[in-house]
């Protein structure tokens, strides 16, 4: 499973991107469960945000969902945080 996260906007206006391939990882099942919950929590198009709020684009095996601060669902936040921290 390939999980890609792109975070845009913010006060700095600097994009940040990271991705992770769960294949062969000992925690692959955990990633898959989190990714599925995140996909269910996201929206098909980018929801209204606030000026300088982050926008998020999450793609799991080619399926993309969107979210915006300050209304980032918990499952999406958890996935975004992990991918940006552990991904490359």
């Amino acid at each position: 499973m390939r999980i890609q996260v792109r975070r845009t906007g913010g006060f700095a206006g600097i994009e940040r991107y990271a991705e992770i391939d769960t294949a062969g990882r000992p925690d692959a099942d955990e990633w898959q469960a989190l990714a599925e919950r995140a996909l269910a929590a996201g929206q098909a198009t980018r929801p209204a945000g606030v000026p300088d709020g982050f926008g998020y684009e999450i793609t799991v095996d080619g399926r993309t969902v969107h979210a915006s601060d300050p209304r980032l669902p918990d499952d999406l936040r958890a996935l975004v945080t992990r991918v940006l921290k552990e991904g490359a």
Partner: protein
Amino acid sequence: MVPDMTTHGGHEPVFCTVVPPHLLDKLARSDDPAVSGPARRTLVRDSELRGRRRVTSEFRLAAAPAVRAPSDRPLRTIYDAGNRTELPGTKVRGEGDEPGRDATVNRAYAGLGATFELFLKAYGRRSIDGDGLPLDATVHYDENYGNAFWNGEQMVFGDGDGEVFLDFTLPVDVIGHELTHGVTQYTANLTYYGQPGALNESMSDVFGSLIKQYTLGQTASEADWLIGAGLLAPGVTGVALRSMKAPGTAYDDDVLGKDPQPATMEDYVRTGRDNGGVHINSGIPNHAFYLAATALGGHAWEKAGQIWYDVLTGGELSERALFRDFATLTVKAARERYGDGGDEHEAVRKAWGQVGVRTR
């Protein structure tokens, strides 16, 4: 592993329309104006609709508190989110309370006060809405959160990740920048996409910088004209996030990339990312303000700031204003307030000419 942090990358589908957003985004970036024009207009219009929905569904309804600040003093409340994301969090300092041990709380409190002070003393504006809106702020939002924003009702500050960004309460211009988004929302309500979006960003940088200058008592020639000085972690190669004096020179770092801001229309960046480059092309109106303010000399908030404030709040600025619309109104405002052919009129007219924005 270090995550890739970049200003480049894939598209950012943003909009809800019958045309798939990724396609609209691609069209908006086409070299053919016949293709890009309609796509861009659709993007702007849709963003405007989203803005209106936000205003009606969240903003206006939520922002009608019974309590108002007295006419000449702010009414501040600082909350601590405890590194979680529920707003507003636990109240830690109210108006008039003595400073506590948390420097972040104290800086947020002082920054809200500095912003209130500039708008009141320089322009006679009573708080963000002009009607004594209480100023609430939440600090320690989320974990390692590298951002700050005005959510339509209150300020939210992250602690930064410590590697790229430090605590977002550190620069007073950042606090002023975010609160000015509130002022813009209550006044011109510039659409947060493309040129009107870049103007919205520029208003926040202009008044954010003026709040810092007012606090330090600096003249235009003494000011650093930087946005976010002190926010970058020690290892980052850069002095700030943006420079109004020399757009494009604030940072050049292997992780952050290079400051992408243009100073003139010649280098205007056409992009669908970052809401159509709102944090990029704001460099152009930012630089025009810097040029006008330094040409006039003295305290920048007194004349140049007054002219910009007149336009932001005067009711003639459209939500979808382009750079040339805004520029034309500032020339008009300078003439009306300070006289036809006066130094102010000439300085403003020349400043826009220097950044390549034509005025009518």
